[in-house]
C-alpha cells in the first residue's frame, strides 16, 4: 500500500485526481485482502468442523458400541449371580459390583477426611511447608496409577502375604487424595473473607467458623470435587490389578475381592465370546455408573454457580 501511495505524483494540479486514484487503489487492495482473509477464515473454520467430526466420531462410537453390546448382556442374573467358569455362558458379576462398591467406599472413607483436612491446612497456612504440600499434591496427580498400585502391593500385600480389598482401597485413596485436596482447597478459597470476618466478629471460635461457615459455604464445590475423584477411582484398573486379587464373592475387606474393572480386563482379554459378552456388560455398567456420578457432580456444581449469582 505504501509503495502505491508514494508512486502518486505530488503537485498542485494533480492533487484532486491523485487523492481519488489513491483512494481507489486502497479500496481495491483492501477489498482483495478482505476477500482473501475471509476465504482463509472459511477454510480454517471448515477444518475446525472437520476436527470436531474427527474427535466426536470415535468418542461417540465408543460409548454407543459399549451401550449396544452391554445392554444385551444385562439381565437379573447378571447382577445377582457370580461368574461361571471361563468360556461358559451365563453367570453374573455380582461379586465384582459388590467388590467395587466396598473398595471404592473404603477408599473414599480414607481419602475424603485426610483430603479435606489437608485442604484446610493449605487454606490456613502459607510458607514453605504449605508450598511443599501443594507441590506434592500436584506431582502426585501426575504419578501413573500403575506405580501407585505397585506401591500398595509393596506396603499392604507383600507384608500381609495375601491380596485384599483394603490394599486396593489404599491404592485408590492415594490416587484420589491429590484431586480431593486441590479441588476442596479451591472451593474453600472461594468463600469470601467477609464471611469469615462476620463469624469471627460474632466471637465464634476459628474452628467453629471453619465448620459452620467455610465448609458449609464451600460444600457444593467440595462435593463436586469428591464425586469426580470417586468417579475417576471406580474405573481404575491398574491400581487394583496387583492388590485386590480377583475372587468370587467376598464381603470382608481383608480378603481378596473382585472389582468391575478387573472383570472387564480378564473377560475382555479372554478368547471366548461368552466371556467377552460379560466384559461388555460390565463395561456398560461401569460406564453408566461413572456417567451418572459425573452428571450428579455437574448438577451440584451448577447449583453452586446459581447460588453464587
Amino acid at each position, binding site marked *: 500500500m505504501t509503495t502505491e501511495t508514494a508512486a502518486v505524483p505530488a503537485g498542485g494540479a494533480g492533487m484532486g485526481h491523485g487523492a481519488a486514484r489513491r483512494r481507489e487503489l486502497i479500496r481495491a487492495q483492501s477489498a482483495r485482502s478482505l476477500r482473501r482473509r475471509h476465504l482463509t477464515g472459511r477454510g480454517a473454520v471448515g477444518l475446525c468442523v472437520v476436527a470436531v467430526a474427527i*474427535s466426536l466420531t470415535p468418542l461417540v462410537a465408543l*460409548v454407543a458400541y459399549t451401550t449396544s453390546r452391554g445392554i444385551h448382556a444385562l439381565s437379573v442374573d447378571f447382577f445377582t449371580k457370580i461368574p461361571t467358569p471361563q468360556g461358559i455362558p451365563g453367570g453374573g458379576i455380582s461379586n465384582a459390583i459388590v467388590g467395587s462398591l466396598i473398595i471404592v467406599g473404603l477408599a473414599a472413607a480414607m481419602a475424603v477426611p485426610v483430603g479435606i483436612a489437608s485442604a484446610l491446612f493449605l487454606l490456613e497456612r502459607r510458607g514453605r511447608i504449605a508450598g511443599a504440600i501443594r507441590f506434592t499434591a500436584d506431582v502426585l496427580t501426575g504419578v501413573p496409577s500403575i506405580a501407585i498400585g505397585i506401591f500398595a502391593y509393596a506396603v499392604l500385600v507383600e507384608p500381609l502375604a495375601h491380596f485384599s480389598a483394603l490394599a486396593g482401597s489404599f491404592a485408590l485413596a492415594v490416587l484420589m487424595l491429590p484431586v480431593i485436596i486441590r479441588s476442596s482447597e479451591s472451593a474453600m478459597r472461594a468463600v469470601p473473607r467477609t464471611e469469615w470476618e462476620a463469624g469471627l466478629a460474632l466471637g465464634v471460635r476459628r474452628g467453629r467458623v471453619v465448620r459452620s461457615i467455610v465448609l458449609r459455604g464451600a460444600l457444593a464445590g467440595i462435593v463436586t470435587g469428591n464425586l469426580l475423584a470417586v468417579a475417576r477411582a471406580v474405573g481404575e484398573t491398574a491400581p487394583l490389578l496387583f492388590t485386590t486379587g480377583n475372587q468370587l464373592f467376598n464381603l470382608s475387606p481383608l480378603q481378596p475381592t473382585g472389582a468391575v474393572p478387573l472383570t472387564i480386563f480378564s473377560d475382555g482379554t479372554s478368547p471366548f465370546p461368552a466371556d467377552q459378552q460379560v466384559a*461388555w456388560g460390565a463395561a456398560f455398567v461401569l460406564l453408566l455408573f461413572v456417567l451418572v456420578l459425573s452428571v450428579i457432580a455437574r448438577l451440584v456444581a451448577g447449583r453452586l454457580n446459581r447460588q453464587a449469582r
Partner: protein
Amino acid sequence: MGAWKKEPEVADPVDRTTSTLEEIPPAERTPVAGVKEALQRRWDRPGGRGYAALRWGGATLFAAVAIALVVTLLTSSSQAFGHSGLSLLWTGTWDPTHKIYGAETFIVGTLITTAVALVLAVPIGVATAAFLSELAPRWLATPLSVLIDLIAAVPSIVVGLWGLLVLTPAFAHHVEPFLKTIPVLEWFFHGPALGPSMLLAGVVLAVMILPTMVALSRTALAGVALTDREAARALGGTRWQVVRRAVIPGARTGIEGAVTLAMGRALGESIAVAMVIGNAYVIPHSLLAPGATLGSAIINNFGGATPGLDRSEVIALVVILLGITALVNAGGQVLLRSRSRPAVH
C-alpha cells in the same frame, strides 16, 4: 495463623474504618475506628487445639504417604539397579530366564506411542476446542461441550476393551492395509498388518486423552479477555483472524498445560495399552509392528515375577516410568515459567 494476614494490604472498598483514622483526633474517634484492629486480633486467635490437630494430622498423613511412595519404590528397585546399574536404561533385551534385564525397548515404545497420541490428539483437540469456544453457535457448542466433558470420564479400561475388540480387527483388515498404500507415509507403515501395533496403541491413547485436551483447551480459550478479542476485531481482523491471532496466542499457557497433562496421561497409561500393543519385546521398526511400553511391560511382568531380583527389576521399570513422567511435568513447569515472565504487560 491468619491465612491472608501476610497478604499486602490492598484498597478494600468495604473497609470504612481506617481511611479517615489519621484525620480524626483521638478524642473524637468513634468506637467503630477500632473494629479493624479487633478483627485482626480475632483473626489471629488460634482456632482451638482440635482444629489445629485436624489440619496438621491431615497434612502430615498426606506427606507421609507421598514420601513412603517414593521411598518404597526406590528401595524395592535398589536390587535391580545394583545388579545392572544404569545400563538397564539402554539394554534392549528383557529375558528374565537368563537374568538379562533391559528397559530400552519399553522406553522407546512409551515415547513412540505417546508421540503418536499427541500428534493425533493435540491439533484435533485444539481445533475442536477453538470451534466449540469461538466459532460454533451457542445451541451447538453447549451440548457438544457437555458431551465431551462427560466422555472425558470414560474409564481407560473401557477404551481399552473397545480398542481390543473393535479397533484391532478394524485396523488389521481395513486401516493398516489402507495406510500402506499412501505414498509418503508408507515409510512408517511397512511390515505386515497384524492389528495390535504401536500405531493402534497410539490411537487408543489419543482417543483417551482427546476429551481432556478439548475440555482444558476450551477452558483456556474461553478465559482470554474480551478486550483482546475486541482489539483484534477493531484492527479489522476477520472472525478467524481474531481466533488465530488473539485468542489462541492468549490461551497458549493454558493449552500448553493441557498438552503436558495429556502427555502425562499417555505416558503413564498401562492397562489399555497392554490390551492393544501386542506385547512384543523387540524395538519396533515400523508403527505397524507390535511393541511394548513401560506400563504394559509392568502389567505383563509383575504378576509372574518371582520375589527377589526378578520383581525388583519390574519395580525398576516403575521407577523409570516415574522418572519420565516427572521429567515431562518439570519440563512443562519450566516452559510455563519461562513463557510467563516476559509476557507481563
